[in-house]
Structure formats: structure tokens, C-alpha cells
């Protein structure tokens, strides 16, 4: 898995070396005759994994903005009992927007034990509650700073400052793609840029082919994927170009680069049909569409349902890592960021997303795909169990000092809750988990040792988990 090249310079070398080894002049093959396409493959030397993989794919439902843990998966009756009481100096933390004078705020939603497992899920998530027995909830997440940009980058790249590849890029780099006409990492997003920037989806120092390809719910699904020509005309042009480029390649010293660029045209040609095919869900049976909520009256829910269903189709087609972002409905690009109007807007966010998330789990399971697909549900933070003052429109602020996320499928233990926060959900008291641990565990399930998946850059072997990360065997089946 180790790339073995010190810094950027040798990226070129290894590409050349690889093309020499693997292609045997594939650039000259006729259109459609290409079977070997390195463009989306990961490290070519070795696509065998470190460990026996439990899962093949990841679907990451990113709950951007930070859903409240004490209103979803971490019941805290004390908050109701002491509602309106000042939290005091002891409850203040730099990992939380806190001050001694703030007051506890009880949850507006009832919590119940669900399924056979008795996992606690609040009434905010009635559909997710129905699949409670599939969930592996971690209630003891600890972040670094209560800020969207930093936490987004931490969640995605393992560093609060970013400047490192996204988890999806690492997975793509480490495992390659099972489908040569599809990228290894796809983000289902609606063109908005999350806090922290597009870097959240980037490949940083990894080769650019591992950065996320963004699929939009409306309009052209992927940039430039709609052919500007009819297939016949495009084929005609590509034939012309191939002849033209071949002559050029012979006049240069870097034939490999030109050949590779020619090959990219062949791949691009095929992507133009593959990607729209996958994006098109119209042939999915009616009951499946309904399961996801494609028929919803709410436009945002329809968009999210469409993306969730596409996520399943992408995974089926061999994409390694799919991320779904939440639709933004009021110009806020952190949809779950309810500093005010907690009840109203958390309910709206829940309505938009939770049915589709539950549907994804059900659908994957009935297709036998849940075992090999890790579904991750996580925001970049939780929300404060306290508020400046209890009012009808009050909300909860940024909190990374203990919050909840869940995994489903992919060999994670199901129907369990791991880790514990204090009686207010204000700090972690048992089994503290950080993002690096989650990253390490996800990679582990994919058969990858997070300490051995490295890329030489800036003079050292970089890895997703930097110098951190522990595989959480306690939550693995």
C-alpha cells in the first residue's frame, strides 16, 4: 500500500513507470476496446488489502451543522429536571460554546427504547427508530474546537486545518475502484460548499483522481458529463483526435503522458453514459422509491431521497465511498446548526433526511449489501445541552465535548450504544472516542490498517490518522 515516493516529484515517475508496465501502448486501441483503465485505480502495485476486509464500501450521511445528541441518541432526563438552572463554572468547556450563566435545556422530544435491542432513540427520528437494531451508536465523540470549519475538516481529513486528503480520497486511494468508469469517491451534493471549503472533499497530496466527484440532485449530475455532441459526432472527433495526437506523441519525449491523456478521452467517453445511467432512478420499482421518500411533498426531502437512492446504486456499481450532504433549505450551509428555533428546524431536518437514511439501511439489508457496506451517520459536532435562556425560540450552540454518531452495517455491532456522557450530555465520562478512532475503525473494516495506508509527502509518510487513531474493536461484530 505504501507509495514509496518521496514527495511530489516522483508522482510523475511512478505514473510513467506504471504506464510502461501496464499499458503496453493502450492509447492506440480502438474506441470501446479498452479494458484496462488505470485512471481511477488506486495504488497500482498492490490492490490487496492489509487485513481480511469485512466491508467493501462506505456511505457517509453527513449531518452538516451538528444534530443535537441530547435530542436524538443520548437521553438526559436531568436536563428536563434542571431546565432553566444555571450550569455553573464546572460545566464550562472550551470544547463547547459555554458560560457559567447559561442554563440547562431539556429535550423537546421523548426518548424511547426501540426494537429488540432497546436502544434509545428519540421521537425526532421515528423511521430511524424502526431500524434501531441495526445501529451502532457512539455517544462519546470528542472533537477539538466548537467551530464548523475546523470540525468539518477534522471529520473529513483528520486535521482541523485540512491540508490533507479526505477520508473518501484515502479509501479510493487505498482500495481503488471496482468500476473503471466510475470514480472511487462520490459526493452527492447540491453545489454548495461546506464550511472549511471544498477541501473537505479533496485529495490534497494524493493523486487528483481520488478527489470527490460531485453529483448534483438537479440539472446535470456531474460537471461536463453531458456530451456536447451526439455520440456519432463525438466518436468521429475522438477518432480524429487519436490520429492527430498519436503523431504528436511521437514528436515528444513524454509519449507516456500523451498516451495517458488519450486514454482519458476513452474513459471520459464512457463516463458520459455510465454516470447518467446510475443517476437515473426512474427504473427503480415504485415501492423502493416510496421507501426512500421520492414521492414526498417536501422538495428538500425529495432531493435527499433521490441522493440516498443514488448512493445505493453507486455502491452497487462499485463506487467505494459515497457521501451524502444535507440539503440546505434556508441559505444556511450548516443545515443542522440550530442556534435558535431548535424544535422547528431540527424537525425539518429530520423530516428531510431520516426516512431516507432508514430506507437506505433497509434497502441495503434486503439486497444483502448491508454486510459489506458501512453506513455512517455523523455531524461534525453535537449541540450544547444548555442555552443562554429558555425561550420558545431558543436553540443549542456548538458542542464537541461529547456527542453522538452512528454506524450501521459493515460488520459493526448492531443495536448497541458505546461510550457515555455525564448526566447532562455535557462531557464524556466513559470510552472517549475521537474522529481518528472512527477513521481507523472504518479503514479496518475495509481491510486497511490505518497505520500502513500511507503516502510519502513533505518528507514523511502521511496517513489519514496522522499519529492518532485506535481501532474500536469493542464496537465490531
Amino acid at each position, binding site marked *: 500500500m505504501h507509495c514509496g515516493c518521496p*514527495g511530489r*516529484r516522483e*508522482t*510523475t515517475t511512478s*505514473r510513467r513507470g506504471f504506464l510502461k508496465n501496464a499499458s503496453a501502448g493502450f492509447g492506440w486501441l480502438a474506441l470501446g476496446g479498452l479494458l484496462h483503465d488505470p*485512471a481511477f485505480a488506486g495504488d497500482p502495485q498492490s490492490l490487496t488489502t492489509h487485513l481480511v476486509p469485512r466491508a467493501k464500501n462506505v456511505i457517509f450521511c453527513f449531518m452538516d451543522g451538528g444534530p443535537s445528541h441530547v435530542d436524538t441518541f443520548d437521553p438526559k432526563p436531568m436536563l428536563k429536571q434542571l431546565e432553566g438552572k444555571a450550569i455553573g463554572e464546572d460545566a464550562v468547556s*472550551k470544547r463547547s460554546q459555554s458560560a457559567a450563566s447559561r442554563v440547562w435545556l431539556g429535550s423537546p422530544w421523548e426518548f424511547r427504547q426501540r426494537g429488540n435491542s432497546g436502544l434509545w432513540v428519540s421521537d425526532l427520528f421515528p423511521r430511524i427508530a424502526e431500524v434501531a437494531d441495526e445501529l451502532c451508536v457512539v455517544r462519546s465523540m470528542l472533537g*477539538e474546537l466548537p*467551530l*464548523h*470549519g*475546523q470540525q468539518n475538516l477534522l471529520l473529513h481529513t483528520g486535521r482541523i486545518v485540512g*491540508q490533507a486528503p479526505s477520508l473518501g480520497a484515502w479509501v479510493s486511494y487505498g482500495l481503488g475502484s471496482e468500476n473503471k468508469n466510475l470514480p472511487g469517491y462520490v459526493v452527492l451534493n*447540491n*453545489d454548495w*460548499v461546506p*464550511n*472549511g*471549503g*471544498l*477541501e473537505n472533499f479533496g485529495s*490534497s497530496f494524493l*493523486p*487528483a*483522481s481520488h478527489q470527490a*466527484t460531485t453529483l*448534483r440532485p438537479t*440539472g446535470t449530475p456531474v*460537471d*461536463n*458529463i*453531458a456530451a*456536447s*455532441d451526439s455520440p*456519432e*459526432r*463525438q466518436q*468521429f472527433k475522438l477518432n*480524429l*483526435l487519436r490520429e*492527430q*495526437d498519436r503523431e*504528436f*506523441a511521437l*514528436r*515528444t*519525449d513524454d509519449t507516456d*503522458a*500523451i498516451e*495517458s*491523456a488519450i486514454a*482519458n*478521452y476513452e*474513459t*471520459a467517453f464512457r*463516463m458520459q453514459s455510465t454516470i447518467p445511467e446510475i443517476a437515473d432512478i426512474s427504473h427503480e420499482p415504485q415501492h423502493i422509491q416510496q421507501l426512500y421518500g421520492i414521492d414526498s411533498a417536501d422538495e428538500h426531502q425529495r432531493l435527499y431521497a433521490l441522493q440516498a437512492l443514488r448512493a445505493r446504486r453507486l455502491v452497487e456499481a462499485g463506487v467505494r465511498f459515497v457521501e451524502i450532504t444535507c440539503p440546505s433549505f434556508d*441559505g444556511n*450551509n450548516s443545515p443542522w446548526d440550530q442556534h435558535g428555533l431548535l424544535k422547528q428546524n431540527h424537525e425539518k431536518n429530520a423530516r428531510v433526511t431520516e426516512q431516507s437514511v432508514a430506507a437506505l439501511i433497509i434497502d441495503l439489508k434486503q439486497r444483502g449489501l448491508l454486510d459489506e457496506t458501512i453506513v455512517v451517520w455523523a455531524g461534525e459536532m453535537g449541540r450544547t445541552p444548555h442555552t443562554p435562556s429558555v425561550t420558545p425560540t431558543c436553540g443549542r450552540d456548538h458542542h464537541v465535548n461529547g456527542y453522538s454518531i452512528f454506524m450501521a452495517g459493515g460488520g459493526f455491532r448492531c443495536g448497541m450504544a458505546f461510550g457515555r456522557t455525564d448526566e447532562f450530555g455535557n462531557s464524556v465520562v466513559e470510552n472517549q472516542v475521537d474522529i481518528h478512532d472512527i477513521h481507523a475503525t472504518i479503514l479496518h473494516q475495509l481491510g486497511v490498517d490505518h497505520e500502513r495506508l500511507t503516502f510519502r509527502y*513533505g*518528507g514523511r509518510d502521511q496517513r489519514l490518522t496522522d499519529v492518532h487513531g485506535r481501532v474500536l474493536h469493542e464496537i465490531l461484530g
Partner: protein
Amino acid sequence: MSLTAVLWMGWVSMSTATAAEELDFFESRIRPILIQHCYECHSSASDEVGGGLLLDHRAGWQAGGDSGVALVSGSPQESLLIKALKQESSEMPPAGKLPDDVIADFERWILGGAVDPRDQPLSAAEAAAESWRSRLAERRQWWSLQPPKSVAPPELNGERWSREPVDRFVWSALQQARLGPAAPAEADVLLRRLSFVLTGLPPTSEQVFAFSPAFHKHPDQALEQLVDELLDSPHFGERIARHWMDVVRYTDTYGYEWDIPARGSWQYRDYLIRAFNADVGFDQLVREQIAGDLLAEPRINVQEQFNESLIGPMFYHLGEHRHGSSLDFNGIHQEMINNKIDAFSKAFLGMTVACARCHDHKLDAISQADYYALAGVFMTPRWTARSIDAPGKHAAEIAELRQLRTQIQQQLGEFWTAADGPLSSGTDLRQWAFAHRDLFATATPEQVAFPFLKLVSQTQGVAPGDLSSLPPELASVDHSASKIWQQLVTSWKSVNAQRQSANASAFTSLSAFVKPGFPDGWVTEGDGILHGYVVNGTPLISLEGATLIASFLPRGYHTHALSSKLPGAVRLPAAAQFSQSHVSVQLSGGEWAGYRSIPQNAFLSEGPAFFDPLADPVWTTFSATLLKNGVTRVLAEITTASLNSNFPPRTGVARSGSVTLADQDEGYDKRSWLSITGIVAHDAGGIPLDTLPQFSALYDTDTDSLPATDAEYWQRLCDWQRGAIRRWGKQESQPGDVPLLNWMLTTGLLSNDASLIPQAAELVKQYRQAESRITFPRTANSMDERGVSSVNYRLNIRGNVDDEGAAVPRNFLEVFRGNHGVAEAAGSGRLELAAYLSSHDNPQTARVFVNRVWQWMFGTGLVATPSDFGQLGDRPSHPELLDWLAIQFMNEGWSTRKLIRRLALSETFRQSGLVDHAAAERDPENRLLHHYPTRRLEAEAIRDSLLAVSGRLDRQLYGRPINPPRGSEDTTKRLFTGPLDSLGRRSLYMEMSIMEPPKFLVGFNLPDLKLPVGRRDVTNVPAQALILLNDPLVVQLAEFWGTRLVDDDSPDCEQRVRTMFIRALGRLPGDRELKRLTSAVQRFAKTGSVTADSVMTDKAAWSELAHVFFNTKEFIYYR
């Protein structure tokens, strides 16, 4: 018997002479090696002691480590230490095996009894210092830290390659490798290469036609002519500027959550373009970027009247700025500092100082202390906006405005003094007052109108609110006038006395602006302040509408006194230097002027508080009480919008009430103003009380006589007002006159109607014309260290921001100590740093820069890692050539242009891309330069070529960034979409937003904007094919070209295809190509169901062919 005892006995039983010898051997041969190679992991300074073994004192190795006893005295064979050094067991030291003679010394030492006088373990600090000192001594021997060596170019005999020294170095290295250079490139290849390398644009058809014949006739002459022509092109500056922008992480925004515009960034981009076009010496550019605000003789752009040097420090501001103050989110601030240090050290030094944030550099001569010493240098100045207009830029207009203002005042003074009307007599005033009583129906005792109100209402015995219903003819009773008067006088005198005394006891006046100037330690900026001092009553001339004057100004500073386009900033001394715990400033302002306090130089604190333009002056308190919880410095400033370094603020920030700046507003060209009319210092809370001076001329009279009648009362009011007018006409206004005059102006007692006072109206018209000639200021984020004291930065232990160690004295890197005066400097030391870096004494600056230029010219530098000349970087392929170039460069005035010319004309550069087998085999990386490599165009050059070839390129230089086309807008982040072709402007003018950089460019490896990048990646991915096949911009430009093609004067298809080759690829087609593409266009026409004859006019067909050209690999590569 324990091992220790055995060893100790061995030591004591030696003869004294032997012991001394052994001791000497240890000190000279063993200890230095231990310090240098072992202490880092095996001493108390180690973060984690390797294998549990301490080698920093005797008992340490005697106790041994996890693997057991480290050495057996007298028996090297049994000693694990020797095995490790020989790399037989573990491999120590990890950086590489020590020389055999050193290992032999260790064996000898152990054999001799392992004498070791080190009784006590060192403290962590001692061990670290000792270990660092010895490592530094070794590391300073590194090649790139040595001054460039003057080496004569090798001598060759009679070869073409012997003319240019550069070539002789290259040739002789090739010879040594038994290789030779490639054959010279053909004319068309050379033209295209030079055009892209020097301007980033393809050659024009005219150049293609002209160059080849000229080259065949006189190759050297033609080439020189071409190179000079390209160097003279303004696009040369754009090209080199864009390269440098990568190095300094150029952005137009600050990224993070709100992507706030980076004020003046584009000014810095244009500064670079101008500088490279004008061939400003690189030493000067170094001085300007590091300390442009401190240069004794700044570089003035005479033509456009601004200070170029002051733009340089924008270099520091680039990169990401996260919002929020350092106080709220410790950690973020330090990340930003890290980015600044990273950019500085990579750009100018080719060193990676940022790596030393958490620990001494693992391999290079950079300690952790160096990092924090440098942080102190950079964090001493204020990071703030500067006005970069040249002093006196608007001197003529300012003088004219001043003169007109005086004339207007004279005219109006005469007019108002002589005017008939309500102020003619007490009776007239009384009549006016009753007619206009609703104007002062709600006056408070503090307001000018109050005596009017009192008299009108109380003489009638009615409540003020009922005044408007009272007919004027009913008002004529005298009996209460004197009583009212008495009350007013008494109450005013008592209030005035009380307040004066309260003010005197609680506040120390620092300035009431009786004279121009600010107190010591206060720093000002901008023409608004320079020309903003006024005496009481100075009229603020109306710049629009039918009125003549807008108001009368109180004594003090008003940035808009002459024009609200003039910028102004007032910077307070650091809070720690306040004479008392608070300083309060009497402030007003408007149109996005504001003030803010900045703790610890937070780069993007969420200020400022904006003024409400409608509010009266307010005493605003700046407080030293913020100096707690580790905050050691608070800097406050009051600025107009143009001098606010964080303007425009993030979207949605309200000014006052709910007035917000429109999302679309980028904050350019804003009229804005601020006024400062008093400064006091105080220890207790509160603000100075208003002593109501406007009434002093009315109540504080020498005589105690009271007005006896209503008429006398009115006459006094009338005299009070006339007095103010008279004094004003003579420019002798008193402090209390200003509110009085302003009240008269707003109530209409003073006529302000242009149509009624034609002489004044004419002057006001001239005033407005002169004011309109004043341009909006140029400002840019830069630095200002006037009036600030130096900062030493605290070391963060292991880089942990919550674990602060001792403050590290400001300094430049220890390895260069003794060569510069940074530590001794009175200010930040930036000026001294800049002087050293731009001198011949610094080994790095010139060498790092010439290497960059080499890379820009040849694709790879002589050092392939242009921003890292350290251990982790590459070694130079031609060290002597690199040194020769650096020395030559400095000797030729650090001229980038001369350097580039020299390289462009070299035989090395003129080579073709033909590689022979031996060369490909022996030097596949082409480090010896045996041919010119095929290079892919950078993202910008690809897009610019599309524009140039299609005919859409707008060659205009400079200007504000242009929004790139976007899939969707996010107005709250100011991510707006622009026209698909960005108006045909070159790519470097597109807005480089950190949050969402132009997608087209990103597709072709535009680097991560917030990081300094020495060398761009070149990837080759299908998304690039998709862009060129389907991106609407490419399709649109193909159509643009196709549409223009059908109007050319080509007689037939073949001829037109030839012109397309020349335009797109800079060459004529071969026969086969010509045939292929000519028949293609006929085919395109056919599929478009057009008859064969009309192919020549078929726009669609030619657009298709244009599209094919854009998609050829040759279009995006040059060789």
C-alpha cells in the same frame, strides 16, 4: 558484585595518567558523538526515551534499557551499544550508520573501561540545548547554508555551447556523464515554447509568419529579437507574477466560514505585474514584501501617484484567515501564524521553518526556538490596512477645496449677518418661534431649543405637547419671563459647574483638539486625517442636493471635512501603555466607518463596531482591563471603511439597527467618515459629562440682570444667535456655537438654500467639481509598526497552544545569527531582516530565486524542490551553475529580466525534445538537461490559450477580480457567478476564492490556494478530457472562433485549416494532417446537411473543427 561496582572499580583503579587520558578521549571523541547523535532520543530532553535507555549520564547506560545492559566495560564484543552502532542488532542512529572510525572510537573507549565523568543526568532543558547546539554546528554545514561560491565556468573549445556560461556548465556535466545535448529545436517549436514560457500565451499568427524566415536567416539575431519582444510584452509581467503568486499563496479572499474579501489582494497582484514588467530588482521586492512599510525611501509610482512599497506586506496577509478572535478560539490563531511563517520561509529562504513549531527540525538547522523567535518578529507590527496613495496625490484639489471652503464661509457669513428674517430682532424671532413651535415641541434641557420651548410654553401655561394647538396671537404675557429666565440660568450654572468639576476630578484630558495633532503614541493614517483638522464651526459643504452646507463641524478631526472619499484611521497606543486604565474617545462617523479592539493581533477579529451615521458624537471607551487571562496586548483602531482591514465584513453584519451591507457589496469605493473631537484618560468607569457650552453665551454673562419682559427675553435669544453668526463669519466660533449654529441650520433660521444665495451657490458648485476629481483611495492590507512596542512570542511546548513555555526573544534564525541586526532592532526587526535577505551576504535568497526562475523556464529547477533546500529537499543537479547564476543575478542588480533573457538565449534552452536512448537510459529524469522536456500548460495558460486562439482574449491588464462562472451562487459567502468567459480576461484576473476557486482552473491543477506552492502538480485525469470535450466555455469559444473563421479571407478549406494550425498550434500542418482535418470539416458540414459548396460559410462546421483543435493534446502541451 554488581556490574556498577565492577565498572567503578575499573575507573578508580586506573593510574592517574591513564585516567586523564581516558577522560580526554571521552571528552574529545565520545561525548560529542553522544550529544549529536544520541541525545535526541536517549536523554532527558527526549519526548519519549528510546528503548528506555539514557545515554546522557553514566548511571543511565549502566542501568541499561529495555533490551538490557547497553555496554560491558572492557568488552566491546558483548556491548549492545556497539552492535547497534554496527547495525547488527538494532540500527542506530536511525538517520544512518556512523563512520567506521567513530565506531572504532567507541570500541576503544569501552575497551579502555568506558570512562564517563557524567555523574548527573542533565535537566531536560540542558540536554535539549546541548543536543541542539551540537546538531546545529553540524547542520550549518549544509550546502544551501554556505554562501554561493564563485566558480569560473568550465572552458570548452570552439563549441556553439561555449559562448554562454550557463551552457558550459551544462555541457560539461553532460560530457562527464558521456552524454550530449539534443539537436536544436526548430523555429516553430522554439517560438511556441518561448511564447508560453515568457508570456503564458500562444504566439500570434503574425509572430509565426515572421519568426521562422528570420530565424533561418540569422538564428541568433532573430532569437534575441523575439526574446526581447516577449520580455517587452506586458504579458511577461503577468506570467512571472502568476508564478510568484503560487509561491506566496495568492488569494482574493480569506476563506474559512465566510470567505471574506482579502482587502487589497488584487492591488498586490497588480503590484507584482508592474514590478516584473518594470524589472524592479528582486532584492527590492524582498525588502518591500517583508518590510515595505518601513523603507526610508519607498518606491513611488509617479504616474499613478501611489506608494508601491507599501503594498508589499500584503504578502503576509495572504492565506486563510479564520474568523473569530484569538481569545475565543485558541489554536486557530496559531495555525494562521504557522501559515505565515511557512510562506515566508519557503518563499524567501527555501526552508521549512514551519516544521519547527512543535520541536526542533528533525534534519535542518532550524530549532523550535527559531520558530517562535520569528513569530515575534512577524507579530510585533499591527496587521492592518494602509493608505497607499502617494503623499500629496490630491494636493491641488485639497488646496482648492480649502480655499473654496473659506470663501463659502465668508460669503455665507456676510449673507447671514446681513440677512433680514427671523433673526433681525427679538420680535421677529418670537414670531418665528410661535410659527415654528412644532420644531422644538419635544426639546430637552440639554438642547439648544429648550429656552425657546420654555418661553413659548410656560408663558402660555400650557404643556409642551399642546403647543401646536396654541394660536400665536394669544402669546404676549410678560410676568413669568424673568422667572423662567432665572430658573434657566440657575439650573444651567449649577449643572455646568457640577459637570465641570465632576469631569475635572474623574478625567484627564489627553486632547480637546485646541491645536492640531494627536497625543504621543497615537498613530494616524490617510489624507482624511492629514487634512481633517478643523476649528469650531468649519462648514461641511454639501456634496449633493439643493443645500449649501451639510453642517457645522466641532473642533477636532473629521476625515470628511474636505471630502468623504479621503481615508482615515486613528490607532491608539497599545492598551498596556495607557496612562490610566481607560481611554475614552469622543467619536462619530458613518457609512461603514467603525472601531475595533484587537487582542493579541488576531488577524480577523470580528470587528469593527460600525458607527450609526445619524447619531451624535459618543464617548467610546477603550480599556486596558482586557489585559487579563493571558492577553498581553490589545490594539485598537478607528477607521473609515477603506482603511478597515476586514471590510467588507462577513455578510449580514449590521451597521446600526438592521442596516446591513448588501451581500453584493464588495466594499469598493465607499464614501465613509469618522470624527474625533476629544480624548480623555480615566480610571473609574463612566464618560465625560456634557457641560452644555452652547448656553454659556446666553446664561454665563457678566451682568446678573434678568430680562424683565417677554420682549427682552426674545431679544436675548436673538442676540445669542446673532453673536454666534457674527463670530462664525469672522471664523472665531466658540465650542458652544457649533450646536447652536447646527440648530439654526436645521430649523431653517439660517438659510441654506442654494437658489437664495447665488454667490455661495456658485462656490459650492466649484467645490463639488473639485471634490469629484478626488479619486477613491487605494488601500491594501499591510503593516504598521509605528508606536507599537515589540512582542516576544511564547514557545508552545511541543506545539501545544495550551502549554506555553518561556517567551523567546524576537530574532531571525540562529543559523544566520551575527549577520543581521534583527534582535537588536528597536521595532519588529523586519527592516533588518529585509536588509539581510536582500544583501549579497545571505546565501539563500538569490539562490532560491534563480532556481525558481530556472524551474519556470525549464520545468524543473536545478534543485527540484524549489521551496525546500534542506535535507528533505533535492540536491542541486548543477551546484556550481546554481551558485554562478546566483552571483551573476546579484551582480546584475537582481534583475529578473536579465536572468530570464540569459536563460532564454542559452543553447540549453534552445534544445529540441529529442532524447537519445543513452540519455533516456542513464538520466531518465533529465536532470542533466540533455533535452528540453515536453510540458503541459498550466491551468491559466490553457484557458488563456482558448481565449487567445478563439479571438476572445481581452488583453487589458490589472483590476479588481472577476467572478468566475459558478454552477450556483452563494450570496451569503459572496460566491457570485460571473460571465462564462469572464469577459475574455486572462485567468489571473479571475477571483481566487479559497472557498471555491474557479472550477475550470482547478480541473487543471490550480494549487490549493491557501498554501505556498513551489511547484504545481501535473495530473492527467479523465475529468480534464471531460472539461475540454464538454465544458460550456470550451464549446462557446469554439463557436466564437468558428463564427469568426467564416469571415476570413481564406480562398478554400485547406487554406483556412492552415491558418487554424498556425493560430492554435503555432505551425503549419503536414500533408496528412491537412488532408485529415480538411476532410473532417467537410464531414462536419455534411452532418449539418449543408451542401459542399457552402462549407466555407458554415459556421457550425468550422466551430466543430475549432473544437477538435482545442482537444488535441498538442493544444495543451508544448515542447
